């Protein structure tokens, strides 16, 4: 067979050996490959801008999120209110900057939960043979077959009041949503880590380390785990986007954060009854979710190409 097709346009491009610096750090190598994915690089720029706006925006744009102004109800975008106002005359730009903090925080925190649980279960399952592995994989498959959104709604319905009394309305719902979204997203990570472990633990360098007397925990932490993190990073990136969508979905159904916390999904939920007279209300919030998720997905794609250069055939 003469030709072979790459899984991605940038995977494994042959670079002539002459004229290249001899020592290239692994990090630089990843960046060099990542850079070829133009959409991913552009996405990093856009996402950084969005994050910066959300983090520092409220310091510059100082209209409080709950300042009610009935003279400016449902106002279209103007210089006073660049994103317009809602049905109580509250400034939508301020509310979106505030909501973005929560959406992004939920995304990253839920990703961390998913990664920690996934790596733990995948690693235990990958290093132990026999019944432990089989049981853990059965649980993983079971979780993959669970209807996530209904269960998410059920858990939040059952435990919301309990946590609200325990930690307070905002913190309680935050912890609950992060834990539950994380608890339904660890399975792909666990599978990836297990697959990596199964192949890595038979490699020569692991054998060599074992021959030198390394204990199993040391083998896992020093040798196997660092080498299996590439796909995990990619999965983690995608998880951030999925968690942001999950949180927005909950808020959009009116079952996420309390009504006075304007997350992006909540803004859409409130805006959907005013679509005919104030479409800007829904459009800005929806566009913010879309842009964030799209850029994160593109970055994940770029990272996949850079870290996991799989060739077809």
């Amino acid at each position, binding site marked *: *067979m003469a*030709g*072979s*097709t790459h*899984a991605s*346009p940038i995977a494994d491009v042959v670079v002539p050996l002459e004229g290249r610096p001899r020592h290239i750090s692994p990090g630089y190598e990843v960046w060099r490959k990542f850079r070829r994915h133009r*959409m991913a690089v552009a996405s990093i720029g856009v996402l950084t801008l969005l994050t910066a706006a959300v983090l520092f925006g409220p310091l510059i744009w100082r209209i409080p999120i709950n300042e009610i102004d009935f003279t400016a109800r449902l106002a279209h975008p103007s210089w006073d209110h660049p994103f317009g106002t809602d049905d109580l005359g509250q400034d939508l730009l301020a509310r979106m900057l505030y909501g973005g903090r929560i959406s992004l925080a939920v995304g990253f925190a839920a990703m961390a939960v998913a990664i920690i649980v996934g790596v733990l279960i995948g690693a235990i399952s990958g290093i132990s043979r026999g019944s432990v592995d089989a049981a853990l994989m*059965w649980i993983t*498959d*079971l979780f*993959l*077959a*669970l*209807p*996530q*959104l*209904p*269960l998410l*709604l*059920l*858990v939040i*319905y*059952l*435990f919301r*009041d*309990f946590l609200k009394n325990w930690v307070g309305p905002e913190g309680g719902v935050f912890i609950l949503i992060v834990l539950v979204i994380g608890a339904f997203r660890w399975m792909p990570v666990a599978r990836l880590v297990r697959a990596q472990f199964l192949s890595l633990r038979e490699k020569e360098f692991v054998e060599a380390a074992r021959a030198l007397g390394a204990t199993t925990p040391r083998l896992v932490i020093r040798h196997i785990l660092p080498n299996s993190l590439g796909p995990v990073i990619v999965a983690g990136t995608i998880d951030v*986007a999925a968690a942001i*969508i999950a949180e*927005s*979905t909950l808020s*959009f*159904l*009116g*079952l996420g954060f309390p009504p006075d916390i304007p997350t992006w*999904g909540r803004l*859409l939920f409130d*805006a*959907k009854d005013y*679509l*005919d007279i104030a*479409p800007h209300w*829904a*459009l800005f919030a*929806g566009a913010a*979710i*879309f842009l964030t*998720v*799209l850029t994160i*997905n*593109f970055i994940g*794609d770029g990272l996949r190409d850079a870290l996991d250069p799989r060739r*077809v*055939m």
Partner: protein
Amino acid sequence: MGKYILRRLIIALPSLLGISLILFVLLALAPGDPFGELATNSNVPPEVREALRVKFGIDDPIFIRYLRWLAAMLQGDWGFSFASRINVDQLILQRVPTTLFVVGSSQILALAVALPVGVYAAMRPYSIFDQIANTFAFIGFSLPTFFTGLLLILIFSINLGWLPFVYRVDIPATGWLWHWEYFKQAIMPISVLGLFQAASYTRYVRSAVLDVIRLDYVTTARSKGLNEGKVVIKHVVRNALIPVVTLVALQMPAVFGGAIVTEQIFRIPGIGSLLISAILANDTPVIMAVTFVFACLVVIFNLLADIIYGWLDPRISYR
């Protein structure tokens, strides 16, 4: 093949049991007593309260309670809806067909878009068509269903006035007109759900076809003089579909999640919107039953995927 289907059925049972166990443990762990209202109601004498607790076995060991609950679920005794004043199984049976219609049509739409686009993109990798398809796929699965739903309502119902945005069961028309109205109200929900899934399916199909199209047996088929259409449909797509079926089955939970959102936006009277209204009305029996039905639907669709899998790749069913 019959033996294979039977084996898959037997494998599906433990996962249903596992799901029921998870549901029950969640309910049992949840704070709050189902008789909490009775306890605070001073009109109920304490001996009646005690008799009710014994009758419903609230104080029995948790394992016995689980078995009893499971037996009741399996017999279709799902309790009584506080909000609708009707038995839960009747309520759900009324609504399941609508959900199945919306989900089924959207899956057909998704595959009808994803298969040709994915195959064509893989036959010409990195062509303009492939790049455009890839970009659209990315946009497609980054657009959450609740936002596309609102966008479509804004464009086609409010600005253009072409399509109704509320799904009606009682259409005031008969004959062909009824079908036309039904079709018109189903377009938006089905395309919201279908195009969202089509985006990810397109990527699966593309990469699966790319894996297959350069294999030697395809070259053999071409060099025999078969025309390109036959090579692609009979030789490439059939094998490429095998991984796609697995990935589509893995998407099933997400599909039903999307159905809840779409039903809520377009006010479709399916089990998804039933779940949301039950949560808002604190109607616990309905919530539990709908969640269980969703779990069963996911398992059934996974089983279906397994059977298709065995049909596409006979080696699997003979193993």
